[in-house]
């Protein structure tokens, strides 16, 4: 990216570097300008880095403003107990905990316990579970912990999460931790902007590619034309331009406004976790970012994934994983060298969060270069149709099975299509007795998807779960995919689906509008689940972005396109043009939130209320 200039006119290459890398001592304030002095006198600076740990069954949390400085520009953050991240809560399975949250802000606040199964009144979503916590008020949360694992908590009010309100919540097994690890670190990733989040939102409403500095340029075109030929360069762009879509629309925000944080620490600050050679280290990765997907790896170290969203999975060893806001992964590593870099690059490659595992403080390992930005592909835009040539064939066959073949002239043009697999799939289909054994493949767009709220619809989605996603395909590393996750012990409910609910993830990038079924939250009605029923939810992504979909209050049990159980999650990332399904047991009475966990998508209206009654 070229040097950034401030609007006032001073070229500030230096500032820019500081902006991306952050201050080494981010969070610690040096020399506050006048405006913040008064506040700083009252409030001590925010504590950043490894969060303090709180244990027990009675916990007090105080939400207040406190000053931070991640970039050289002092700002006010909203914090919990004065730290970013908020204190790590280490609670015990089976305990009933009482958590008093006091609001010292000038606006209402709330705390949502992300992934925790609890009564809806304790879920912390203002306007759905309760009225929120008014300024000066204390709200007492009380709930019993019936699960174990790595979770997190955050504000569910306005944009407070993006301004500092997130922390780890670990529920320790009552019988002791079955996983042997010599060290146990929370690695919480987040993102910070010096801008007011609603100002960021307003900019995106005016120009949705405001923060994208990887747009296709004329210079790129000539480079492509000279290496691949003019026709190829034109072909590469034709459909994108015809459809008014950008192939580099990978993230709405970018390093142009975000500073990427690891445990509240900037890349320059370099959060460090210590180990001794030969030790086994457990890293609890939590994506607490407002709007950033991260691709995480530790060059030189294999990571064995043992938990996803707090739930144990069959161990799987990988080099890298991608996760979006809301998701968590626990991994085990066995470092042998002196130092390793924890490298978490943003999905749009505009920056990274970084930390170090080392045998002593001050040691560092090389920080890898950011990967090149890859353009979205046909598969990302058109699903199975676009990806036909290279898709997993069984998934492909599944995608076509229920379609009228005469309506698909292209079917016969597919070179090298595995007809055997298709035929076999047909025979299986013929034998299937219960149509609800696997998710319906018939795409049913909502009638509200044909208006201004939606800029595209995918008619032939891809249903395979083994795609690591744009920017990670064929990168030479072993990258985790949803197909690699296998929850230990199988589903919590052995019943099959009694009915299906199909929801489409929709948006209009040009208008910066995000919705479900083409309807923003304000125009929507709740999704009603009958108490006790086992229901299949199909999420069908009609956009070109990946959306981490978080259902409150109940587990989302991800399945394959064939209806085989895959993994229990609280947040499921749905890739562009992908159609995935999961089963939900509606065992939690009340009203719940269900939304994309990218904050700006959620706030734009990609949000539903769920009623279980």
């Amino acid at each position, binding site marked *: 990216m070229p040097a950034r200039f401030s609007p006032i006119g001073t070229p500030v290459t230096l500032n820019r570097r500081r902006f991306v890398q952050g201050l080494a001592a981010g969070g610690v304030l040096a020399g506050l300008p006048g405006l913040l002095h008064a506040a700083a006198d009252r409030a001590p600076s925010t504590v950043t880095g490894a969060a303090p740990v709180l244990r027990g069954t009675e916990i007090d949390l105080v939400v207040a403003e406190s000053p931070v400085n991640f970039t050289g520009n002092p700002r006010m953050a909203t914090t919990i107990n004065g730290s970013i991240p908020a204190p790590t809560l280490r609670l015990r399975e089976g305990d009933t905990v009482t958590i008093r949250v006091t609001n010292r802000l000038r606006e209402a606040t709330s705390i949502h316990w992300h992934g925790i199964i609890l009564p809806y009144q304790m879920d912390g979503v203002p306007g*759905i579970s309760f009225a929120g916590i008014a300024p000066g008020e204390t709200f007492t949360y009380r709930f019993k912990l019936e699960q174990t694992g790595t979770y997190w908590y955050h504000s569910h009010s306005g944009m407070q999460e993006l301004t500092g309100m997130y922390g780890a919540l670990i529920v320790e097994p009552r019988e002791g931790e079955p996983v042997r690890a010599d060290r146990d670190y929370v690695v919480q990733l987040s993102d910070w902007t010096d801008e007011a989040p609603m100002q960021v939102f307003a900019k995106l409403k005016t120009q949705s590619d405001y923060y994208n500095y990887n747009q296709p340029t004329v210079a790129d075109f000539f480079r492509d034309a000279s290496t691949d030929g003019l026709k*190829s360069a034109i072909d590469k762009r034709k459909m994108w331009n*015809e459809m008014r879509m950008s192939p580099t629309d990978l993230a709405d925000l970018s390093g142009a406004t975000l500073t990427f944080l690891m445990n509240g620490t900037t890349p320059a600050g370099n959060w460090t976790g210590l180990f001794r050679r030969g030790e086994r280290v457990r890293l609890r990765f939590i994506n607490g970012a407002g709007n950033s997907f991260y691709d995480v790896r530790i060059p030189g170290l294999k990571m064995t994934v043992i938990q996803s969203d707090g739930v144990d999975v069959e161990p799987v060893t990988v080099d890298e994983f991608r996760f979006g806001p809301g998701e968590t992964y626990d991994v085990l590593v066995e470092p042998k060298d002196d130092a390793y870099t924890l490298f978490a690059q943003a999905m749009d490659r505009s920056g990274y969060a970084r930390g170090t595992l080392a045998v002593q403080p001050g040691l560092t390992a090389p920080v890898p270069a950011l990967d090149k930005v890859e353009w979205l*592909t046909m598969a990302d835009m058109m699903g199975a149709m676009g990806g036909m*040539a290279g898709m997993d064939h069984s998934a492909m066959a599944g995608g076509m099975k229920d379609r009228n073949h005469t309506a698909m002239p292209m079917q016969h043009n597919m070179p090298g299509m595995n007809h055997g697999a298709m035929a076999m799939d047909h025979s299986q289909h013929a034998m299937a007795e219960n149509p609800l054994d696997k998710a319906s493949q018939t795409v049913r767009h909502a009638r509200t998807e044909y208006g201004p709220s939606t800029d595209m619809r995918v008619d032939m989605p891809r249903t395979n779960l*083994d795609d690591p996603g744009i920017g990670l395909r064929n990168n030479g590393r072993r990258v985790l995919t949803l197909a690699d996750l296998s929850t230990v012990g199988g589903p919590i409910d052995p019943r099959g689906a009694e009915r299906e609910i199909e929801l489409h993830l929709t948006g209009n990038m040009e208008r910066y509008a995000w919705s479900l079924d083409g309807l*923003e939250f304000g125009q929507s009605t709740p999704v*009603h689940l009958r108490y006790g029923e086992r229901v299949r939810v199909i999420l069908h992504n009609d956009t070109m972005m990946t959306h981490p979909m978080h259902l409150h209050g109940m587990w989302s049990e991800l399945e394959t396109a064939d209806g085989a159980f895959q993994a229990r999650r609280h947040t499921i990332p749905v890739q562009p043009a992908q159609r995935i399904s999961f089963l939900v047991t509606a065992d939690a009475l009340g009203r719940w939130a269900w939304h994309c966990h990218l904050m700006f998508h959620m706030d734009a209206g990609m949000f539903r209320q769920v009623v279980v009654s």
Partner: protein
Amino acid sequence: MNTLSILAASVLVLGAAPTLAIAAGAQGQHVMEAAGAQPESGASPMKQAAAPAAMPMGAMDHGDMNMQGGSAPADARDPHAYSGGYTLDSGKYALAGPRQLRLADEHSFGTLLVDRLERVDTRDATSTAFDAQAWFGRDYDRLVVKAEGDYANGRLEEARTELLWGHAIASYWDAQLGLRYDTGEGPDRSWLAFGIQGLAPYWFELDATAYVGNEGRSALRVEAEYELPITQRLVLQPRGEINLYGKKDEANGMGSGLTDATFGLRLRYEVSRQFAPYIGVEWNNKFGQTADLARAEGASTRETRWVAGLRFWF
């Protein structure tokens, strides 16, 4: 050209733009090209999943697909089908009182974009021109104000101000309805305005408006802009504009029919997305009666204008 024909032309253009754009992208004419690269049989699942990445866009066979716009088929899914009669603020477990949770879709935003604020140099004179657009409201309904004009020798030569209600009618298009008021050296004129504004395929920004005024006056104005990023910050903006009037307005120097056309190129550097200085050149041609009126006044009918200015928004 009489009023009737200008209205007919307006309908044609206003119809053609969305037809070209909305319908082309929408009513099923948008033919997706699909399937074609060579699959690697026997490749690992990983590799297979990854293969599309390498596939060039467009190097594909045909298969009709209808990814944008269009109208919902009769059997399209009802988005409220799963509600069981519940609404956001009524039914069991709903919080008491009016609905509290309102997200940004129920929040109004607004912007003022000064697309051109420039010093204009021609062989004969220098002047200052402005072209701004502001909006306030929500995604699908908003108030739009457009203002364009120029000053010379400390006097407002001409200005067009429009106050419009913009309503989203398709993915990339807003219909606009409202009033236009012209001021300047000649007599003021007021008009009813109806137009469309949006993004045509291949990223052409289009603004086409038809006007009906007093005394049987009518007009049509079509403006198109394109943004061509040379680098991430250096942007070339071609811009074209044509004006048609249904009735001669001698006091304002307008003949009937095609009055003038302008084509310009502006090269801007985006110091930030919101602040970009530029330089450029623009050619303007007057036609027919309008050209005759200009000649009678001793003015030129063809002009090359050098411009330097600022584009900014907030």
